[in-house]
């Protein structure tokens, strides 16, 4: 059983949890994810990126936004409760520049919303491999930022905050500072993790500069081992499974519109399930 050891609320809808999972903690590398269930009889299986892991304690940490039936139910679980199913680590680890023979360089990490969580451990690993790491994080508004301090520890002065409403940092979109960095000519690689639309536009921004751009996709999945094919996307005209071929892909090759549409395939049912989950907890604190 995977016991919840710590729980904290990072913003209105974003939660962090530390979960007992010694085998996963032991094998996990930056960029990998797990699939979990909150109810093994009636629940669904959802993928979540592993934000961090502690081999010594045998724990993994997850950061998630309570937006769907399962994440809402998860957000209502407490320290001491156990998750009936946690499977992982799944997917291929991040290919860290500087670790595989290439020279370390200047990597710009762009994070949006909940995508900052997986980005954090990747940025940490990139830094450890000797790269200069610049971090751009975006949110709709100041109170929706997560892991700001943790990111500052990695990037020092190279942390750029962007908000839609200008309540913190620059007002605008993450693609604006990203473009300026690209124009400066000293960027070797970009890693963008966030909502699909953000990743799409980051990829479009870097394309004219021909800068390698890695994105991490979070599609609908069931088994997570390549069996069902529900997570398939098109990359450079070829069908790929996010669960086993990814979750990271070349952002310039991903068919974004298709990926976004496939992610929305169950929108109507998801709304009903979410309302059902919300009703379930109505009046509870």
């Amino acid at each position, binding site marked *: 059983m995977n016991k919840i050891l710590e729980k904290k609320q990072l913003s209105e809808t974003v939660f962090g949890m530390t979960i007992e999972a010694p*085998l*996963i903690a032991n*094998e996990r590398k930056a960029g990998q994810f797990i699939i979990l*269930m909150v*109810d*093994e009889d*009636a*629940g*669904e*299986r959802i993928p979540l990126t592993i934000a961090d892991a502690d081999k010594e304690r045998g724990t993994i940490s997850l950061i998630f936004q309570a937006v769907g*039936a*399962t994440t809402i139910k998860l957000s209502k679980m407490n320290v001491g409760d156990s998750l*009936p*199913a*946690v*499977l*992982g*680590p*799944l997917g291929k680890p991040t290919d860290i520049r500087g670790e595989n023979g290439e020279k370390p360089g200047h990597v710009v990490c762009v994070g949006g919303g909940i995508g900052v969580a997986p980005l954090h451990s990747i940025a940490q690993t990139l830094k450890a491999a000797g790269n200069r790491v610049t971090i751009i994080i975006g949110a709709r508004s100041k109170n929706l930022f997560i892991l700001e301090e943790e990111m500052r520890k990695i990037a020092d002065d190279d942390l750029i905050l962007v908000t839609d409403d200008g309540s913190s940092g620059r007002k605008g979109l993450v693609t604006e500072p990203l473009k300026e960095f690209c124009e400066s000519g000293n960027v070797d690689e970009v890693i963008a993790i966030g909502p699909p639309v953000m990743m799409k536009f980051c990829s479009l921004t870097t394309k004219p500069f021909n800068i390698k751009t890695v994105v991490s996709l979070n599609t609908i999945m*069931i*088994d*997570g*081992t*390549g*069996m*069902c*094919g*529900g997570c*398939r*996307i*098109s990359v450079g005209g070829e*069908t790929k499974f996010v669960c*086993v071929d990814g979750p990271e892909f070349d952002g310039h090759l991903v*068919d974004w*519109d*298709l990926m976004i*549409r*496939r992610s*929305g*395939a*169950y929108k109507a*049912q*998801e709304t*009903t*399930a979410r309302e059902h*989950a919300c009703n379930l907890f109505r009046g509870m604190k």
Partner: protein
Amino acid sequence: MTPKERMAIAPQAMPEQDPSVRARNMNEVALGYTAEMAMTEAKRCLQCPTKPCMKGCPVAINIPGFLAKASEGDFEGALKIIRETSLLPAVCGRVCPQEKQCQKFCTMGKALGDIDKAVAIGRIERFCADLARGQTAGDISASAVRATSTGKRVAVIGTGPASITCAADCARAGHDVTMFEALHKAGGVLVYGIPEFRLPKAIVQSEIDSLKALGVKIELNFVVGRTRKIKDFLEKDGFDAVFIGTGAGLPKFMNIEGENLVGVFGANEYLTRANLMKAYDENSNDTPCWRGKRVAVLGGGNVAMDASRMALRLGAEKVYLIYRRSEAEMPARKEEVHHAKEEGVEFLTLQNAKRILGNDNGSVTGLECLKYELGEPDASGRRSPVAIKGSEFVLAVDTVVVAVGNASNPLIPSTTEGLETDDRGHIIVNPETNMTSIQGVFAGGDIVLGAATVILAMGEGRRAAQGINRYLAG
């Protein structure tokens, strides 16, 4: 009884739910024989001294032997004979393609000039197993005599038919067996793939419970290769042997235009949602269900039949089954083909999908097909279909399910150094022991054979268990 008298007995039809009713529920279609029907049907067996039926059975069940017992009403005795070689009669009686195995060689069918009039061996097998399950636990526990503990530990990867058989046989030999399953329920394809209406999950569960009663441990939510590697099992975790029975879980697609549109599913996903995740019951399950109104299923195997019949049960008004050869070449069990037709699935044979059409929102709106004719026999001996130029036509559908087979899942081979596979990704084994290129690591079932049947996988699991038991004894 004289052969003439036996030949005069009418074949006993299987009681079934009415097609129009069952096409809208998940309950088992075939209701099973009564004792009287099983006895009558068993009396039709001519007790041929050459036992031709046995050579059609992948695990060589003594068929005339168990039929003789059943004809006398000694169903317990019949089951005892079945269990000498088969571990899961309740499952196999339901899902074996009998008309291609035992019943294909049945003299009665030949004498009457109609394979459908062969002795219904599978139905009698099922009756015997079901009767016993009503009284005791599953098939496995009833046939389980455990040897004294050897102190040796065996890891079995996967919980499908090959792994279940291997685990049971290793446990019976006295080894300490642990099974590892990536999903949250044990049973493999028997729970995620084969629908409730063909194989009730309670039957699979009773076999899993019997395994546990035998002392077999089952670790769910554990994906070998990722959570832990085979090397770790042998070097760090104290396992003496490993069996890989991970099946053929990598869905093939057609590689045609539009295959990634919203509303196009691999059959594995389509069936897993409905079977394992119970998505059809939306009020009590969170997994969303896709309820297509006009569904096209591509393929002609059992999985295609399951998917098309599931589509009806999920509320489809029209279901087309599209297969590029003729019905005679369909790999599906004859009974499933028959059931699908009865339930209203429209068969479009000698036709094949050319591309899937979508609207501006990326959702499926139609399927462009081509008509085919049969040409020369190909390598498989089946006449190969040849496209008829200019025969394109469009079917208006909102859902397409691709059921054209599975390739072998590369997860274990790609994470296990030194494990040899052939060019199709199947694990290479010694045909006598089922040992792989790694000492102490065995494999069997679809990961070795390519997508096959439950009974063949069972036979493989059994042979691998013998290999393991000999290896651990030596």
